[in-house]
């Protein structure tokens, strides 16, 4: 584990993917997002009918694609953000207890930007489909003083990738007697 930076304390995480399912280097990535009543914003969306907000599906898709970019370019950018989304269509609702499977196919991955076609499904039914354009940045490119922020972000990303790609089963707690 990396040492915690100052100002780092447990906080709400804006992480919309839970597990890596498939990865074809530079080409395709599939991740899973479990939806749970523990996600507090569901109480507002909607009261009596909790469903994953469409923009959270979009964020999950952006994060899925961004992980393929990181894996392909060797964690070279502190910030990978959405530049443009096109043709985003929503289908089936996604409810707590369900898992949204996000598949991102890379159309192109260049040093500074990438294009993807994404699809999110639940039991094979389409919940979201879209085309995404991402941009990849380092803060030091506009302000050299921010190089340390870039480093901190990259360290956090590497650590998170380890969590997302854990494939071993959880350790057992010893035989029941």
């Amino acid at each position: 584990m990396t040492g915690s930076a100052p100002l780092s304390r447990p906080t709400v995480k804006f992480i919309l993917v839970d597990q890596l399912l498939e990865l074809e280097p530079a080409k395709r990535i599939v991740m899973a997002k479990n939806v749970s009543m523990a996600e507090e914003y569901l109480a507002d969306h909607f009261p009596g009918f909790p469903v994953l907000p469409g923009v959270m599906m979009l964020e999950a898709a952006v994060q899925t694609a961004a992980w393929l970019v990181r894996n392909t370019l060797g964690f070279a950018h502190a910030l990978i953000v959405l530049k443009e989304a096109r043709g985003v269509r929503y289908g089936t609702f996604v409810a707590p207890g369900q898992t949204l499977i996000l598949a991102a196919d890379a159309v192109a991955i260049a040093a500074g930007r990438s294009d993807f076609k994404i699809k999110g499904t639940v039991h094979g039914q389409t919940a979201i489909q879209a085309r995404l354009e991402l941009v990849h940045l380092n803060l030091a490119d506009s302000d050299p003083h921010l190089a340390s922020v870039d480093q901190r972000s990259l360290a956090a990303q590497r650590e998170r990738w380890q969590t997302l790609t854990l494939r071993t089963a959880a350790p057992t707690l010893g035989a029941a007697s």
Partner: protein
Amino acid sequence: MAMTKDEVFVKVKEVLTTALAVDDDEVTPDAHLTTDLGAESIDFLDIIFQLEKSFGIKIPKNELMPDTNSPDLVQNGKLTPKGVAELKTRMPFLDLTGIEADPDVTKIKDAFTVDSLVNYVMTKLSA
């Protein structure tokens, strides 16, 4: 001055590339809106809105899609024989052989090709 079919095709193509986020060369006359260009139900509404704006025409509510609330025409998600006949009269430019075999209401969208949309706009413009 009346528009030619080619002129209408160019404008319909613009609407479809925007609404369906597809490339220009994918929008061929034979392309099916759903199976080839990936159109969903909301896209049909988008296309209707944009066609109205682009051509200055009015597309009334049940002109392109049948009224699913009318038991004469639709029962249990399937078109009645009367419904199929009504569809054929209203939309002679659609290839409805698939619908005649399986009158599932949700399959009507699959009958729309780019060319059928162009023909539809032509009839609206000459009305």
